[in-house]
């Protein structure tokens, strides 16, 4: 990451009446980065994107692109272009007219304009579709038109609002790969909004997770998954088991936590948030189970298998532990049906030392 942020969002808020859609958000995005805004619906991610594009004006704070303040720049003069969630491919124009729409302002010679349109169509593999009308295109093709139409403007930043939400699952996966390759080849900064964690992870270099108008955490996908900043982030990104814990002692920079029926662990004091409630957390795929207790495991307990579900590439197991309010979920990729435990079986579950997180609520 370069030192100089390419897009700088500085303490930006947006109020709609009494609702704070975006609440004091600061973010820095580098040049050439593929950046995701991830969050549940209503978290303010789309509003933030629309403020970068210029369709909404921040109530407070300021947005800089390439060092320039954007406050007084209307959308048609910003170095950004957008791919809309509905694609907004003009229904009364052909594919070619749609792609060339934004070139009118640039007053190019007609051969130059034609060359640019051909290039853009080629970039999104739509050569030969020039004369089609949008209602003769599939959803995926409409999206390519929207992409070509935005990229032909050679924006400094491409904004994408839920770019894949309107596509079916198989097409979505294909387009993920294609978008990623496209971004690499054009080298433009991409900022996109999604509610789908897998999509955010598959596409982006960094992800900002948003809840209730605020950014909860900004990090690479791997670090977000392994080191979530709070129970809420952890719960939103994949599955997570949470356990209540009580601090029972503190000495020499380490803290002892009592995790109820699972036993006690010692963790470095710096890992335990101070002054706020916290929980101990572990990902389902890191929970092991066997007929005998594993001594090396920091936390362990006797558990009864309540049920299991076969999910194809992996299986999910649900355990009850006496004294725990909620069941524990474990995930394995066991493929040997014979070694599968039977429902109702009494087993030992354990969590290895290194894979335990202590997260603030």
């Amino acid at each position, binding site marked *: 990451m370069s030192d100089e942020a390419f897009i700088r969002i500085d303490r930006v808020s947006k109020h709609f009446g009494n609702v704070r859609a975006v609440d004091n958000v600061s973010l820095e995005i580098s040049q050439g980065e593929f950046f995701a805004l991830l969050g549940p619906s209503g978290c303010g991610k789309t509003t933030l994107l629309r403020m970068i594009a210029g369709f909404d004006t921040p109530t407070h704070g300021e947005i800089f692109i390439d060092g320039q303040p954007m406050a007084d720049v209307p959308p048609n003069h910003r170095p950004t272009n957008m791919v809309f969630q509905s694609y907004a491919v003009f229904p009364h124009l052909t594919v070619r007219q749609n792609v060339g729409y934004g070139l009118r*302002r640039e007053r190019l010679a007609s051969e130059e304009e034609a060359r640019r349109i051909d290039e853009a169509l080629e970039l999104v593999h739509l050569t030969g579709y020039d004369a089609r009308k949008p209602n003769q295109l599939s959803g995926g093709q409409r999206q390519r038109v929207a992409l070509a139409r935005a990229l032909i*403007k050679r924006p400094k930043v491409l904004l994408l609002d839920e770019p894949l939400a309107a596509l079916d699952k198989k097409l979505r996966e294909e387009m993920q790969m294609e978008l990623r390759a496209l971004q690499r080849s054009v080298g433009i900064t991409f900022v996109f909004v999604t509610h789908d964690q897998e999509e955010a992870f598959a596409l982006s270099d960094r992800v900002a997770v948003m809840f209730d108008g605020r950014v909860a955490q900004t990090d690479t996908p791997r670090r977000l998954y392994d080191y979530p900043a709070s129970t809420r982030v952890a719960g939103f990104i994949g599955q997570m088991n949470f356990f209540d814990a009580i601090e029972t002692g503190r000495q020499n920079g380490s803290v002892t936590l009592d995790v109820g029926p699972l036993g006690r662990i010692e963790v470095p004091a710096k890992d335990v948030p101070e002054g706020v409630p916290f929980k101990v957390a572990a990902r389902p795929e890191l929970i092991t189970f066997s007929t005998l207790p594993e001594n090396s495991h920091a936390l362990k307990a006797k558990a009864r298998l309540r049920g299991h579900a076969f999910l194809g590439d992996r299986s999910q197991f649900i355990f009850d532990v006496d004294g725990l309010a909620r069941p524990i979920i474990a995930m394995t990729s066991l493929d040997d049906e014979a070694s599968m435990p039977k429902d109702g079986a009494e087993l030992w579950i354990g969590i290895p030392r290194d894979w335990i997180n202590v997260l603030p609520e």
Partner: protein
Amino acid sequence: MSASGFMTENRPLKAYALLIIVYLYAPILILLAFSFNNSIFIAFPFKGLTLKWYWALTGNSQLHQALWNSLVVGVIAALVSTILATLAAKAVTRYRMPGRNAMVSLVSLPMLMPEVILGIALLVFLLSIDIKLSLATIIIGHIIICTPYALVTMISRFQGYDPAYEEASLDLGETALSTFWRVTLPLVWPGVVSSLLLTFLISFDDFVVTFFLTGTEQTLPIFMWSQLRFSDRLPAMLALGSLIIVVSTVLLILVEWLRRRGEGATATP
């Protein structure tokens, strides 16, 4: 939908619907039939077919003047009210400024009050500022009664498509004005056409408000009202009425067809 199964046919209801159609159409068909009757009396028995009542219309210069006035008033009222409504519909559907519901309610008032009262209110206003009644006052009155209908038509058209189209155009570098010409207008065009036709027909047909605002120049309905008192002129009026009904029905079917076609073309799947 499959032809058989749950709630697909109801013969008594269908028979009732046909009966109502007969009730609705009978008076109009009677008018049409008697406009070809070779008798000055609109009564049975039929005296034979004739086109002379239609021929009589061709030589009536008063009628021609009234028809011309109606066309002028109708075209101006339709154009002005549709332009006003298009701008206003864009404002209420795309910008959330305070007071827009109050403004829409004020403009829609003519749909919510008896026409006689609207007519006298406009008359009292015009008299109080010493404006002489003329075709111009009729045009103002017609713009006022046509605009609510134009507004309803245009608002539903604006609501019928995604505002992202206009945002996309701005995003691609166009100004607000060029976006209006390149994106908004083509998308709302079917609405504009049906609003023009609808408001023209409303203006062309209006009697009550016109009745109060008419000076010496008559529109067609005012002319007809004056003629209906003379029994010897009734057959010619039947011929005129038949022509108006047939022509305006054709126009209305055109409107409906355009509207449906417009909805089909820009519906986003």
